[in-house]
């Protein structure tokens, strides 16, 4: 914290008063008001809180706020600045262990807590990470590197590119596997993009995070990273996967193909689900069980190619009844190069949108249609509407998830803007984003009335 910012977080009159009375954050203060006396450390004030209050940490370690008015007397009786220095820990390189790189983008699998302010600091140096999850050092030689420190909603396509380039560098330097620490919100989007960028991927790339924050003793982060290290270091597969809790218990993790995976709950540990298919496998303390036979094995590094040509002038439109076609029109006006459209049911949009579709067709802007129900295939030949849409150049997106279609269109448009070629590429699966078959277990959205859901999934 910079000196001139002190007292940190305080605003307006109160701030002026504190400065006038030489009271800083971390001052030990005595506050008197009528017959009440408070003693404690003046803490930095967080944003979006009331201007007239000070926050004190009192002797019990608790925080509380006090309204400062004319009747309040504040007196500095000491000063206690925090001293942040991490202990040095030597992390030993072990010849016999596989080498795994952890690229951090902002999702934290472990944190340090600043008990004084309540701030959560990602634990990211090897020392911190091994302190937080000591078992890691006996599984793999892990090299953590920071790419970004951003919330996952702040990702952009060029960040995917940089992430892929970093992965490529690690692979070429001999990493046996790469783990990407990522915020869970857009983990699947990044995962899908990486799956297209990393051609003939020779080693596993595992995206991982914590769904319940890593600043809590119950966080899923530690187990997720341990299982990810196991997967990245030892397992014979080479795909971009998401490895997160499969159930609410700390029992097993599911291994999802990134292009087929979606976050389905805002907060639960087992939020990630493979749609229209089953997960690739599961991992628990007994090891890995692969459910799918088409898991791509590790391949020689020589075949690996990085293909990060992109065109990010792509947007997603979500169709809803009553949608004004001006939304699509304006995308054309704004010079978008491609649109992923989420259509109702089998992939329909209202007839009001037709003229705008025709404009896209004229301007050779690909409109890739995917389905709002998320599971199941698009099918524009069943109903008249669908055939009308096809006639207006709409490209069927198979059973691609919106995130997989969006990232794919960005990638495809980076290679060609030839509308026929775009259509061909969009409809050809390159990383499992389209399946030609959906078996009965592709739709396992259990409704909570079945007995032992957890057992069913666990024993798949």
């Amino acid at each position: 914290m910079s000196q001139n910012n002190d007292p940190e977080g305080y605003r307006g009159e109160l701030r002026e008063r504190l400065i006038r009375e030489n009271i800083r954050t971390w001052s030990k203060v005595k506050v008197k008001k009528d017959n009440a006396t408070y003693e404690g450390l003046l803490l930095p004030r967080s944003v979006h809180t009331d201007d007239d209050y000070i926050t004190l940490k009192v002797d019990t370690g608790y925080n509380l706020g006090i309204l400062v008015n004319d009747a309040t007397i504040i007196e500095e009786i000491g000063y206690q600045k925090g001293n942040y220095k991490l202990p040095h820990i030597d992390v030993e390189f072990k010849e016999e262990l596989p080498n795994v790189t952890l690229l951090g983008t902002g999702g934290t699998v472990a944190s340090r807590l600043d008990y004084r302010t309540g701030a959560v600091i990602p634990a990211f140096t090897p020392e911190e990470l091994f302190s937080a999850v000591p078992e890691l050092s006996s599984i793999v030689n892990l090299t953590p590197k920071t790419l970004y420190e951003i919330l996952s909603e702040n990702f952009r396509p060029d960040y995917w590119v940089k992430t892929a380039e970093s992965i490529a560098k690690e692979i070429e330097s001999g990493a046996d596997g790469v783990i990407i620490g990522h915020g869970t919100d857009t983990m699947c989007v990044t995962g899908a993009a990486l799956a297209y960028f990393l051609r003939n991927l020779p080693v596993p790339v595992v995206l991982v995070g914590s769904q319940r924050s890593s600043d809590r003793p119950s966080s899923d982060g530690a187990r997720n990273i341990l299982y990810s290290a196991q997967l990245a270091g030892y397992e014979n597969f080479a795909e971009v996967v998401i490895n997160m809790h499969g159930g609410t218990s700390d029992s097993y993790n599911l291994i999802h193909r990134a292009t087929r995976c979606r976050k389905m709950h805002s907060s639960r540990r087992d939020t990630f689900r493979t749609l229209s298919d089953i997960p690739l496998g599961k991992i628990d303390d007994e090891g890995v069980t692969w459910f799918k036979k088409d898991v791509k094995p590790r391949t020689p590094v020589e075949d690996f190619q990085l293909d990060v040509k992109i065109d990010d002038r792509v947007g997603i439109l979500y169709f809803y009844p009553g949608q004004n076609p001006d939304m699509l029109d304006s995308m054309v006006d704004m010079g978008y190069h491609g649109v992923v459209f989420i259509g109702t049911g089998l992939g329909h949009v209202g007839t009001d949108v037709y003229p705008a579709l025709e404009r896209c067709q004229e301007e050779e802007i690909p409109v890739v249609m995917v389905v709002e129900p998320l599971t199941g295939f698009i099918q524009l030949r069943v109903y008249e509407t669908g055939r009308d849409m096809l006639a207006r150049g709409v490209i069927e997106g198979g059973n691609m998830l919106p995130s997989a279609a969006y990232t794919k269109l960005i990638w495809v448009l980076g290679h060609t803007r030839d509308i026929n070629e775009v259509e061909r590429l969009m409809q050809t699966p390159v990383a499992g984003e389209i399946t030609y078959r959906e078996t009965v277990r592709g739709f396992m959205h259990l409704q909570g009335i079945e007995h032992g859901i957890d057992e069913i999934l666990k024993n798949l």
Partner: protein
Amino acid sequence: MLDPNNLNFEKLGFQAGIEVHHQIKSKRKLFCHCPLILEDDPENMDYSFYRYFRPVLGEMGDFDPGMLVEFEKGYKVIYYACEHNTCTYEMDETPPFSPDPEAIMKGYILAAYFNCTAFAEELVVNRKQYLDGSITTGFQRTFISGRDGWVPLANDRKVRISNVYIEEDAARRVNWTDTASRTVYFNLDRLGFPLTEIITDHLDINTPEDLLEVAKQIGRVLRLSGIGRRGSGSARQDVNISISGGDRVEIKGVQDLKLFDKFCRHEVVRQHALIEIKDEMHKRGIKKEDFQHTYIDISHLFEFGEKKVFATVFPNMKGLFGVEVQPNKDFGLDIFDKSMLISGIHRENQFHSDELEANAVRKRSKYPSSFNINDEKYQQICSILKPKSNDVFIITAGPERKAIHALKKIVERVKMALDGVPQETRRLLPDGNTEFLRVIHGKERIYPDTDTPPIVISLEKINEYKKMVGKRPWEVFDDLNSKYNFTQNKVDLLIRDEQLKRFYSLTENRGINGHLAYRLLINIPREWRRKGLEVSNELLEKIGNAISEKILIAQQINNVLNKTAENPEKSFEEILDEIKSVKHSDEEIEEFILSFLSKYNLESLKIDEINQKIAVTKITGFVLEKSNYSREGKYIAEKVIDLIKRGSINEPKQRS
């Protein structure tokens, strides 16, 4: 060991503080919308799941030592949950909802009841870490409502209330049969109940009696204010105890106030013994580095199959492990409680060589060791360990990793003995002894909850809450004691039975005498309850009104209740009419009087005025009762005097 029943608390420098945890009456849990329903059978469940916990690094990149010990226990925590009282919040799968406004309000009212001067004008929710599994997040959400209050003690003394907290209650530990087990079970029903924690300054209480009285004062406030939730398990106390030269030891989860005196005495004795052991160790010149983490495998001397047996020598410690630190418990066993809890090796599988002495305390303890070490075995062990004559060895048996873990904890604990009494949280046992539960959590392991923004409680609101405080229990006592000479016990019953408001209404608004009001509201319902019948408050109020309106007299109360019990279908008014309608005629009254009067010598009554007065009062009483108070006492008394004067007694007529 000191005699627990003969302690000079003042001389020993006894100091105590209490933390009263009491559930708050409300409609929902503190941070979610689940109802406050406890399962009758705590093992009830619709589903279950399990978790592991691990400490979070502090800002310095290290762990809190207390947290590390918890992690070392390596618990697998299994939760039982029912759908009707548990949601994804208790499962730690959903962030908290806004805290329950009713519980917040009650927290501030309570702070006002306890005379707090400093209120939290902006409420900040904090997290307090727990790794024992009792809270699914690994931390308890908790906040201060007020500070710097007090409760009075006899002789104008005050005990300071340092803080009033509102927090979420923890899950209920269930299936707690084996302390050594690495799997622990909790039912989530109780998790999230709004709870208040009231903490006294630990310097202010110097005897167990005062401690008990303070606990009672706090309890009275919770009851009188109507804020405390009732029912079993709604209140638990943690007590901090220290003596001069000792240190703060927290005894956790005391539900029964009757045990206070006993465990205070047992803890004083324990701390005193630990100080003596410390002094003796220093006298013998023992240093921490004398105790080495050397674990010697002596499994081959025992036939324990898969189990391994390890031993460590403790130089110069002869006799000290055998010191009785609490009744029927030696220092060795006190240590083994801890090594068992952390490593999972049963204390019966832990042995120290002081146990071989004649009359060893361990042998009469609740948990004697299961080793059978005869002379031959002892010699065999000694031939490997080669202890000197003043050394002690300790043996643990179990799976290799755990057995070594137990010895490691024992070595660490013995080193700590050189510092005297370790700060610990201990579990109370029914016999008044205690055993290790965990290292006292550092207060710095509390940090603000990032999920809940601070809530401003305006000064207007705080003033409003202050106004909602009625008479405090000690004020009620002073009042009723001066008006009616009521004892504290009597006042306590008014508070406990929640009849105080009604009592004041009867005495102050309805002009009923305090003693009668007390009899009506407390004695009579309690007598009836003993007979297995509940007297409703509604009925009590109707009776009170009838007495106040002089429709009914006190002596008729039981008659009303009898008739109500016999004829539950009848209304109060009908019953009243019935009682009124049984009017005994003048002749009948005369008959009653004569039947009693026949036992007296009429002639002497005529002349002896004093005796006459006594007889008249007595007979009037009998007749009143016999006639169900249907006639006024005055009429009967006059009639008695009249009959005495007449001086003739006819044989009572036989009534058909």
